[in-house]
């Protein structure tokens, strides 16, 4: 069974162990030659994380484009659990959330992955970043509909150009415990507003109305929170990348 780095205990506490999670989850590529490395060599320097076991990263686009259902099934096995966890925060009904999840993978399947890899984007773009952003957009739309809110105009022509690469998302997941701790330092008010935007699908103005606060104040909180997140990511991931 392939596990997401974050595993919640039955008590609701989260536990994460890099030592346990990273080797179990990711293949490690120490160079262009896929040699079998000795454990001492592996531990001598951080390995370049290239992708989760079960998904042949370098071949995934080609295999999906080549109509290999096994490649798509592997992608589903790897990313459906965290995606489902995220989607169900917006759409609590499991059946409805599952439809969103399935449709997203099938959309990728129908177009042979072209939305990620073949529309002027990076041929090494990470499918998981696309999956998370698009799942949030879809689930957010349904959330808004359920709340009786107008649908948002959502222009998105060129997402593939801006997708991170698998080594970046892999690095992020391998440091998710640190990143989560850093994000927990967000001031409570900012976190609350960010949750309204991320998981209630609200715009800044709608969040201001919900909290009975001036729009300018909410806008400042959202921007400050996002700036905080990006800075922390830059610090935590940048330091790590420098060692590679």
């Amino acid at each position, binding site marked *: 069974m392939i596990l997401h780095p974050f595993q919640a205990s039955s008590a609701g506490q989260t536990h994460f162990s890099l030592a346990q999670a990273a080797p179990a989850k990711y293949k490690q590529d120490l160079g262009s030659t896929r040699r079998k490395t000795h454990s001492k060599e592996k531990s001598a320097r951080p390995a370049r994380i290239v992708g989760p076991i079960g998904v042949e990263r370098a071949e995934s686009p080609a295999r999906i484009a080549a109509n290999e259902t096994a490649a798509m*099934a592997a992608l589903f096995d790897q990313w459906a*659990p965290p995606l489902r966890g*995220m989607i169900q925060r917006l759409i609590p009904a499991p059946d409805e959330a599952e439809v969103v999840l*399935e449709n997203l993978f*099938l959309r990728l399947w129908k177009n042979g992955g072209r939305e990620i890899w073949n529309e002027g984007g990076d041929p090494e773009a990470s499918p998981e970043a696309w999956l998370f952003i698009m799942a949030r*957009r879809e689930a957010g739309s349904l959330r808004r509909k359920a709340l009786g809110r107008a649908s948002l105009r959502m222009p998105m022509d060129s997402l593939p150009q801006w997708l991170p690469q698998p080594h970046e998302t892999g690095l992020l997941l391998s440091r998710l415990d640190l990143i989560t701790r850093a994000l927990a330092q967000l001031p409570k008010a900012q976190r609350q507003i960010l949750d309204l935007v991320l998981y209630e699908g609200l715009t800044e103005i709608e969040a201001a109305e919900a909290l009975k606060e001036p729009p300018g104040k909410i806008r400042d909180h*959202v*921007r400050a929170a*996002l700036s905080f997140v990006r800075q922390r990511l830059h610090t935590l991931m940048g330091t790590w990348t420098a060692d590679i």
Partner: protein
Amino acid sequence: MDCRYLENSYELFLLGAVGETEAARIQEHLKMDCPNCARGLREAALALFALLQPAKPIMSTPSQRAHFLQRLKETQRPAE
């Protein structure tokens, strides 16, 4: 054109949650191949990937997996 004022809007743009005016400004910059906006959006995509990670993944049940695989087999791709 200075686009520093857009730098904290990229995540909302990716979520489709910015106003039309702001979205149009970002798109205008991207059409001009603005490197700052392109880099900002890439960082924003990674930030969203981090923010959206659930505390509790929900594993697929055998029936959910089987249902997906069945739909996968039944889904035809449009002709190239």
